[in-house]
């Protein structure tokens, strides 16, 4: 309501106008939620004091469990215990088969153009739905801790995520009923969390090795502005790969006679435990017991280094590349920030140090730093933060292009172009009377279409028939601040327009999201009415507070008695009904207060503008 928007110039909003916002790190291995409370960004723990929520969903026995509860089933029921699902976001069956046997699940994909679903005892489920479950769990935690409904969230994604992976993340948030302020790149979030802009201006590198993804970003910091110069990485490379390499080693050592999914899962769990043990020790014992097969072994740090080195070495190629793309010499990097649980492996720190020729920074918990940065950004975006100067300028991680003759790609927007960005391209017809044309949008750096990711194929139809070469079709590609693309097209001589929202070829259609929303609502114990009622109650309280504080400050000076009484009448009426009424009724009552105060709002606006204008330059007011 309009009353809420009035605050004295140069002053932050009054406490009761505070919006609840959170940052969510939706990770491969663990997920976290953080929020700014009393000016400090911190991760929010669950009832048992745990900050990390394992990104695991259990789908057995007619129940859905999330996090630690789900993790318990990992070693005994691996096929129904869904983990590392982030690796499947925005991926089609073919991509998944290229991941090899990293994930044990059985996939169902009935038709082309629909997302692959994992077969479980409780029915098929897509990666987007699994992620939505994790998001819901974190949202509930945040809303309980913060005591209200979240106005919006910032969700982090690997900087190197392509359009399809970003869209899938957004879809998961929609499914979880969240208002997403922004998708924020994980390395950028980490840079924000370190608050390096406060300490110095300069160029920094953020090295982010997670469970399943690797990002490297080069940023220039200048007075609260975080400008990403270049970003690179590998969206299918992470600590999981070290576990798998260790798993292979165990298989060689142990000579198990019969390998099934449960044993494979146990081998991986043992491998991960060994990796973690070796971050602080020089050797570790491993033991696996399953179905009459026993193995006991010992892994030394030397052996571990031999196994892990080729994987970590793979991260250095993107590092060299981003430096070139950013046009920055290694010597000009003033800080290297380490992010992601996998940077706890001492060999990672060692190799990063020798590459960048400087000691990397790891003062903040590498598991929490991304969520904290996201919380700070969410706080700024929702308007709570008094520090309005912070601004994050990010880039497109992978080039966007279209298919041309012979299966080759033509770049339309190059990688590392600052976003948002729009590019237009003109085409003409090559046949007499041609009224349609098809366009295939792809993302990636390779020359051959088959080596790039197919984002969308669409047909432009309905332009008037003309002789070949006479039609002029302008296609505009728009990438927004989330790194998501939309395409629109227009035939210039006739003005016929066609709008196409690019959904990844194998992304979810709106109907699919719709039906999933319905299903998840049926699944949820709380029905939608009660949620809406809760929202209206919060809104009603907010309106009453706003009216009260406005009246207290200038009610007497701006209002006549009749008008004041009328406002009070509706205000009191609303207050009486808060706990008794339905959501629709409350909505009406809120509206009544707003209508009664309309004239008052206008008067306040005028007087505040007059106050604001006093002694200010036109420039400053002119926003």
């Amino acid at each position, binding site marked *: 309501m309009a009353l809420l928007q009035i605050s004295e110039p140069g002053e932050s909003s009054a406490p009761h106008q505070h919006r609840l916002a959170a940052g969510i790190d939706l990770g491969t291995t663990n997920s976290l939620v953080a929020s700014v409370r009393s000016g400090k960004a911190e991760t929010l723990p669950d009832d048992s004091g745990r900050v990390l929520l394992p990104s695991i969903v259990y789908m057995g026995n007619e129940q859905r469990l999330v996090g630690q509860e789900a993790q318990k089933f990992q070693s005994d029921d691996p096929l129904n215990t869904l983990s590392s699902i982030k690796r499947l976001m925005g991926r089609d069956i073919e991509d998944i088969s290229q991941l090899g046997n990293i994930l044990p699940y059985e996939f169902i994909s009935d038709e082309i153009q629909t997302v692959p679903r994992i077969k479980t005892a409780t029915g098929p489920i897509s990666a987007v739905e699994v992620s939505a479950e994790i998001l819901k769990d974190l949202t509930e935690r945040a809303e309980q801790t913060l005591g209200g409904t979240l106005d919006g969230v910032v969700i982090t994604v690997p900087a190197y995520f392509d359009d399809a992976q970003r869209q899938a993340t957004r879809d998961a948030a929609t499914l979880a009923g969240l208002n997403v302020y*922004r998708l924020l790149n994980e390395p950028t979030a980490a840079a924000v969390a370190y608050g390096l802009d406060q300490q110095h201006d300069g160029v920094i590198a953020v090295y982010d090795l997670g469970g399943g993804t690797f990002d490297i970003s080069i940023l220039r910091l200048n007075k609260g502005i975080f*400008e990403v110069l270049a970003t690179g990485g590998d969206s299918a490379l992470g600590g999981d790969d070290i576990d798998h390499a260790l798993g292979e080693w165990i298989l060689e050592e142990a000579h198990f006679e019969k390998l099934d999914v449960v044993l494979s899962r146990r081998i991986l769990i043992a491998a991960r435990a060994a990796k973690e043990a070796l971050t602080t020790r020089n050797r570790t014992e491993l033991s696996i017991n399953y179905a009459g097969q026993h193995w006991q072994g010992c892994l030394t740090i030397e052996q571990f280094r031999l196994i892990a080195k080729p994987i970590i070495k793979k991260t250095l190629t993107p590092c060299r590349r981003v430096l070139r793309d950013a046009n920055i010499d290694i010597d000009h990097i003033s800080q290297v920030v380490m992010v992601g649980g996998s940077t706890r492996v001492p060999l990672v720190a060692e190799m990063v140090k020798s590459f960048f020729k400087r000691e990397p920074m790891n003062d903040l918990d590498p598991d929490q730093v991304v969520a904290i940065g996201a919380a700070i950004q969410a706080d700024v975006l*929702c308007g709570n933060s008094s520090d309005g100067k912070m601004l994050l300028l990010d880039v497109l991680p992978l080039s966007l292009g279209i298919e041309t003759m012979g299966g080759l790609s033509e770049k339309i927007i190059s990688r590392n172009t600052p976003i*948002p960005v*729009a590019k237009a391209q003109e085409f003409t017809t090559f046949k007499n009377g041609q009224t349609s044309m098809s366009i295939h949008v792809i993302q990636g*750096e390779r020359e051959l279409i088959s080596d790039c990711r197919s984002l969308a194929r669409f047909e432009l139809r309905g332009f008037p028939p003309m002789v070949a070469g006479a039609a002029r079709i302008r296609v505009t590609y728009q990438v927004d*601040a989330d790194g998501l693309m939309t395409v629109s097209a227009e035939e210039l001589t006739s003005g016929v327009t066609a709008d196409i929202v690019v959904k990844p070829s194998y992304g979810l259609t709106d109907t699919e999201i719709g039906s999933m929303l319905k299903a998840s609502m049926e699944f949820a114990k709380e029905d939608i009415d009660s949620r809406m009622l809760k929202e209206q109650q919060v809104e009603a309280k907010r309106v009453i507070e706003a009216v009260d504080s406005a009246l207290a400050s200038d009610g007497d000076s701006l209002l006549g008695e009749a008008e004041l009484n009328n406002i009070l009448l509706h205000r009191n009426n609303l207050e009486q009904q808060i706990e008794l009424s339905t959501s629709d009724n409350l909505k009406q009552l809120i509206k009544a207060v707003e209508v009664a105060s309309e004239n008052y709002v206008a008067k306040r606006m005028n007087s505040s503008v007059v106050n604001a204008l006093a002694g200010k330059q036109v420039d400053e007011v*002119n926003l």
Partner: protein
Amino acid sequence: MKTLDLSQNYFELFKQPLSFEIDLALVHENQQNLQAKFHPDRFVNASEQDKRLSVQQASWVNEAHGTMTNPVKRARYMLEISGIDMKDESETTSDIEFLMEQIALREQMEEVPKKQNPLEECDNIIKHLKVRLKTISDDFSNKFESGNLDTAKLVSRKMQFVQRILEQVMDLQFQLEENYS
């Protein structure tokens, strides 16, 4: 929301005189000031229309910045706003010496994968091409300043040639690296 005057040219937007030699630091500073006003992050709670407007204006500012900071795009843009028709791409240079140089460069590029250290070889070619681009850019600047726009247009074509081959070498290096790792 305050709207940008889209009728101004990029030089006006970044408060620069219409000249090839620009104050890059100042352009950069102006870019950040403009983004601070128009970036979509400033309109998260605004109406849908203002959100769209912000995406469009921030995009325009980024496009302008990208054109100003890239010498080849900047040169082309300067000619365009000076009324020179730049659409006809078929026009090529008749400078024989320059053509020979281009052919030699392409041959050198084709040899790269056979070299002992192809990545380093790419680095060498890139370094050389950047120096060449600078020399030709200086030539462009002189021709433009002296008002000789038709000649400046021919020089800008040379800049495009060099830029294109530079991009090809960089792509090649990218792919070689992928195959090596």
